[in-house]
């Protein structure tokens, strides 16, 4: 177990160090989030629609579309000088590689979530009336499941010709439960509903993430092995 965690830690450290030095994915995801917020700021007529009614949906769509920009490049970074073959020929189990990739992607997407919340609060003046910890729970559970699926499918598409174009086509249908319950939970918390009011959403999102993580860890070996 100690070896397993050391290997996962090494891969997460490597991914985050590379991201800090290149800003390859965070710059694309961050620019997208800010752009969406700015565009909707000018596009929505506030005399007709209250921003709070739209905010939850817009936040989730920005996270999903922005997140896919980053997740799509998960394994593209490993193509440099055959580096991924170096990992595959190491004694690191395939499920450990998957969990490490999910962990580093999850941390990057949490940063995206914070940025998205910040820009939406800034441009739409949306106030969180409900429990902020519950909001964090809804967003992080949803993002965890999304990251697990996105990471798995990024491994599927990285060596295909269509690559990053194919990823959303494959992933979107599977994300429907996450988006539906994520938007519902977020919107209720924006409206000031108590934690017990979003328990159902939290449970579905937790179950969704657990299934995505376990199935991803099991299936990943079939994705990377010839």
């Amino acid at each position, binding site marked *: 177990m100690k*070896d397993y965690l*050391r*290997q996962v*830690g*090494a*891969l997460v*450290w*490597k991914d985050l*160090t*590379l991201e800090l*030095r*290149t800003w390859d994915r965070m710059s694309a995801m961050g620019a997208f989030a800010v752009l969406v917020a700015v565009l909707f700021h000018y596009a929505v007529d506030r005399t007709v629609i209250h921003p709070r009614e739209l905010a939850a949906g817009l936040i989730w769509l920005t996270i999903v579309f922005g997140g896919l920009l980053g997740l799509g490049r998960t394994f593209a970074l490993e193509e*440099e*000088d*055959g*580096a991924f*073959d*170096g*990992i*595959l*020929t*190491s*004694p*690191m*189990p*395939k499920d450990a590689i998957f969990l490490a990739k999910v962990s580093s992607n999850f941390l990057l997407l949490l940063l995206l979530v914070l940025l998205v919340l910040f820009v939406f609060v800034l441009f739409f003046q949306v106030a969180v009336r409900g429990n902020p910890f519950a909001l964090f729970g809804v967003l992080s559970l949803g993002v965890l499941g999304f990251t697990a699926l996105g990471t798995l499918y990024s491994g599927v598409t990285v060596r295909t010709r269509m690559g990053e174009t194919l990823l959303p086509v494959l992933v979107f249908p599977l994300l429907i439960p996450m988006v539906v319950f994520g938007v519902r939970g977020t919107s209720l918390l924006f409206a000031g509903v108590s934690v017990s009011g979003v328990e159902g959403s939290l449970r579905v999102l937790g179950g969704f993430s657990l299934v995505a993580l376990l199935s991803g860890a099991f299936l990943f*070996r079939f994705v990377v*092995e*010839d």
Partner: protein
Amino acid sequence: MTAPPARPAKGPRERSDSEQGPLASLDVRGLVRTFGPIRAVDGLSFTLHPGELLTVFGPNGAGKSTLLNLLAGALQPSGGEVRMEGRLRSHGDVEWRRSVGILSHRTFLYGHLTARENLRFYGRLFGVPHLEERIVERLEAVELERRGDEPVRGFSRGMRQRLGLARTLLHDPAIVLLDEPYTGLDVHAASLLRELLSSLKDGRRTVVLVTHDLNQGLELADRVAIQVRGRFAHLDQAAHLPSGPVDAFYREVVEEALEEGR
């Protein structure tokens, strides 16, 4: 061809002097790998004793790199078996991969990490004990100790390949697989790498070298194989090669094998 090892064991055996690292024989029997209708490796059998270096020559598409990937554990065989010290390689064999080091023309290095960080990363994947000391040792061995804290993207092709060799040997593997290690190197860098590779002939490591270059391949070889269409058209001691120009012999073997295959 030699007989398979007589003494099956659980893994590479350790010498009494632990500084000298593990020893392992490699036994391949009826190895097959297909890609659809193509048999990239077609029933290969050979045994390598600890310390032996086998050079595999062959034309493009002969299945040489596929053979190395099968030995490395990166590919699963469609048939046959591979044993190290009598222990059969199984699917997803983590211990097998711990005993093997692979260097190809691709270095597996990250340009945005420093040389030391690259080695530290791979060292942690392989669970190398006393890692920091080992990194210093390896960097010194490939004459890169002064460049250890520089990002690899600023390295020349030759320096990258030397660092790739340091990465390959970091965990002191019993079996070393070299896939066209000289590709893309200029004469000076190739000569420097050749000197470093000759240190692999320490009587401990079992080495398989795949190359197109007959002269470079023969310099280090104990045994020579010529692979054509997935099969060994020739396998013998390097000392038994006929006298005279080796490229004429190579062409003859390849042409004969291709003719037989028609």
